[in-house]
C-alpha cells in the first residue's frame, strides 16, 4: 500500500507544476497586460495598487524570472492583496473556505448516499417500472440547467411557500441563537444548495453504482454465496455491496473538480459566503489577485481531495492494502 500511495504522490508533482504554469500563462495572456487594462477599466482600484502590482508581479522582469517569482509566491500562498480592499488575498480566501467546504462535503455525502440507494435498488429491480422511472428522472436531472432549477426553487420557496431560506448561510438573528439552534439554522440554509448540487450529480453516480452492482452480482463468488445457503439480504448488502462501492470512491474523487467548480454558481445564486462567491465577486470587479488566489486554492483542494480518495481506496481494497 505504501508503494501505491507514494507512486500517486509522485505523480501529483507534475500536475501541481502544470497548474502553476497554466495559471501563469492565463495571467499573462491578458491583452495589453492586465495592470494597464485594470487601471483603465476599474474605478475601484486605489492609485497605489498599480505600482504595488507592478512590483509584486515583477512585470518588468523577463518571463522566466516572473514565473519563478510566481512559483515562490505560490509556495508561500502569497497572492498579493485584493484590489478592492487591499486585504491580503489569502486571508479573504481562507475566511470563505469553511463555508465552501461545508457545502461541498455535505453535497458529496448526499450524492454518495442517495446515489448508492438509487443505484443499488435499480440494480436489484432491473427493467422494472421503478427502474425505468428512476433512470428517466436522473436523466432529466442531468439535463436540467442547475442554475435554472435553483431559480425555480427560489421562486417556490421564497415566494410561494416560504419555508426554506434561499440566501445566505444563516439567519439574521444567528448571533442570538444557542449552539444547537445555530447548527440547525445553518443546516436549514444548506438544504436548497445541497439539493441542487446533488440533483445533477445523482444521475451519473447512481448509474455507475447500478452498473457496478449488476456486474458484481454476476460474479461467481456471489453464486457461491448463494450456494452456501446465505440469506439474500446478507449476500446483497454485505458481500456484493462492498465490492461494488469500491470503485465509487474513486469516482467521487474524480467528481470533486466538478462539485467544487459548480459551487461557484450555486454560492452566487444562494448568496452562500463561500470561495466560489468570492471568485464571482472578484470576477465582476476585476480583482485579479483574488481570482488567481481562488482558482489556485480550488485546484489545491481538488488535489487534496483526490489524494484522500486514493488513500481511502487503498485502505478499502485489500488487494492494494496487502500486496
Amino acid at each position, binding site marked *: 500500500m505504501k508503494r501505491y500511495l507514494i507512486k500517486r504522490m509522485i505523480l501529483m508533482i507534475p500536475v501541481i507544476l502544470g497548474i502553476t504554469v497554466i495559471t501563469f500563462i492565463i495571467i499573462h495572456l491578458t491583452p495589453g497586460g492586465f495592470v494597464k487594462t485594470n487601471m483603465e477599466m476599474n474605478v475601484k482600484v486605489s492609485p497605489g495598487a498599480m505600482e504595488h502590482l507592478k512590483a509584486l508581479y515583477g512585470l518588468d522582469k523577463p518571463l522566466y524570472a516572473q514565473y519563478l517569482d510566481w512559483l515562490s509566491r505560490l509556495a508561500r500562498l502569497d497572492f498579493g492583496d485584493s484590489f478592492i480592499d487591499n486585504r491580503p488575498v489569502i486571508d479573504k480566501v481562507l475566511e470563505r473556505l469553511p463555508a465552501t467546504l461545508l457545502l461541498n462535503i455535505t453535497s458529496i455525502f448526499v450524492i454518495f448516499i442517495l446515489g448508492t440507494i438509487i443505484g443499488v435498488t435499480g440494480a436489484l429491480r432491473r427493467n422494472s417500472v421503478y427502474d425505468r422511472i428512476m433512470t428517466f428522472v436522473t436523466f432529466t436531472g442531468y439535463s436540467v440547467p442547475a442554475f435554472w432549477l435553483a431559480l425555480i426553487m427560489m421562486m417556490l420557496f421564497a415566494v410561494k411557500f416560504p419555508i426554506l431560506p434561499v440566501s445566505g448561510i444563516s439567519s439574521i438573528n444567528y448571533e442570538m441563537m444557542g449552539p444547537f439552534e445555530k447548527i440547525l439554522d445553518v443546516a436549514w440554509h444548506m438544504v436548497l444548495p445541497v439539493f441542487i448540487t446533488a440533483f445533477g450529480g445523482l444521475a451519473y453516480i447512481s448509474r455507475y453504482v447500478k452498473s457496478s452492482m449488476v456486474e458484481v452480482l454476476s460474479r461467481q*463468488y456471489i453464486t457461491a454465496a448463494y450456494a452456501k*445457503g446465505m*440469506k439474500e439480504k446478507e449476500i446483497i448488502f454485505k458481500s456484493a455491496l462492498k465490492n461494488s462501492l469500491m470503485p465509487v470512491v474513486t469516482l467521487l474523487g474524480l467528481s470533486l473538480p466538478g462539485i467544487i467548480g459548480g459551487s461557484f454558481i450555486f454560492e452566487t445564486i444562494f448568496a452562500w459566503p463561500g470561495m466560489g462567491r468570492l471568485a464571482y465577486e472578484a470576477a465582476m470587479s476585476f480583482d485579479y489577485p483574488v481570482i488567481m488566489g481562488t482558482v489556485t486554492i480550488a485546484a489545491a483542494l481538488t488535489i487534496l481531495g483526490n489524494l484522500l480518495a486514493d488513500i481511502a481506496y487503498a485502505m478499502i481494497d485489500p488487494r492494494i492494502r496487502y500486496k
Partner: protein
Amino acid sequence: MGPNQAAIISVKGLSVDYITGPVEKLHALRNVNLEIAAGESAAIVGESGCGKTTLAYSLLKLGPKNSVLSGDIVIDGISIGAAKGEQLRGVRGKTAAMIFQDPGESLNPVFTVFQQIKEAVNAHMSPVPDDGAMRLLARGMLKDAGLDDAGRVLNAYPHQLSGGQQQRVMMAIALSCAPKILIADEPTTALDVTVQAQIIKLLLSLKKEHNLTLALITHDLNVAVMLCKRVVVMYAGEIVEDGMISGIAQAAHPYTHALFDIIPDMRSGRREFRAIPGSVPDLRYPPAGCGFEPRCPRAREKCKRIHPEMEAGARCFFPYETRRIE
C-alpha cells in the same frame, strides 16, 4: 445403482431453457432423468455446452434469471423446484454443498478466509458460535482440507493464496456444515497439473471420511474415472449414457466411445491429439433425431429421423458391445 438403494438426488424430466431473445430459446437441458444414491459417486461428463454445468447449477436452483425450468429435482426428500426461502437455504450448503471451477473467482476478494468460513457456518448453525469458537472450528476445517498453516490462511485474503490453497479453502467452506452431498463443478480444471493430483487425492479422502455423495462435473475423463465408478455422459442437453464405466471397454454409446478413444494415453504410444469431427448441434433448434448422428460413425437412416430413448444405459439404436463391471 441397485433397486434397493434410496436416491438422495433424484432428477425427473428436467428441462431447462434459456431465454435468449424475445422469441428465441436455448434448450440447454432436455428431459433429463438421473438418480444418485446416498454415498454414491457419479461423474457427469461431456464437452462444453452439453448441459452438465446447467444440470449442476439446477440442483441447487442457482440458474441465471433468464432460465426456465420444468420437471423436478428432489434432494434428500425436498423438492428443489418448489422450495424457496428458508427451505431452499436449508438445502444449500447444508444438505448439498457446491464447489466451483475457478477457486479464485469463487472467493470474495474483499473478505478474509475466516470471514467467509464464518458466513457459511452462520448460515446454518444456531446458535451462532462466538468468534473464538469459530476460529477453532475454522482451523480444524482448514487442516482437514490439507492446509497446514491454517492460522495464516485464516487471516489471509484470497489473492494472497495460491490456486491450490484457494481450492482447499473452497472445500473447507463446502464441508463446514457437514453436507451429505458435494457437487463439484470442474474442481481441477483451473489448476496446475501437479496441484490437480493433490486435489483429487483430497477429494477421495474427504469423500471416504465424510461418507459423501459426490456429483462430479468434468470434461476430463481421466479425472472422472479416477474419482467415480459411475459415469454419466451428456451430449447436447441430454444424458446419452449412464453406467459403471472405467474405460473404453465399457463404453456403449458411440460418443462415449469416441471420448475415450481420443484421449492420448501414455501406454498406447499415441502422441497426437485427435478431435471428433463435426460440431455440437445448435440447441436453439434441437434436432428431431439423435443429436450425435451427424458425427457418429455408426449412424444410419433411422438415427436421423427418430429420437432414441435410454436403453440399457445408452441412448442409442446401435451401441457398441461392452464388458460391464457390476
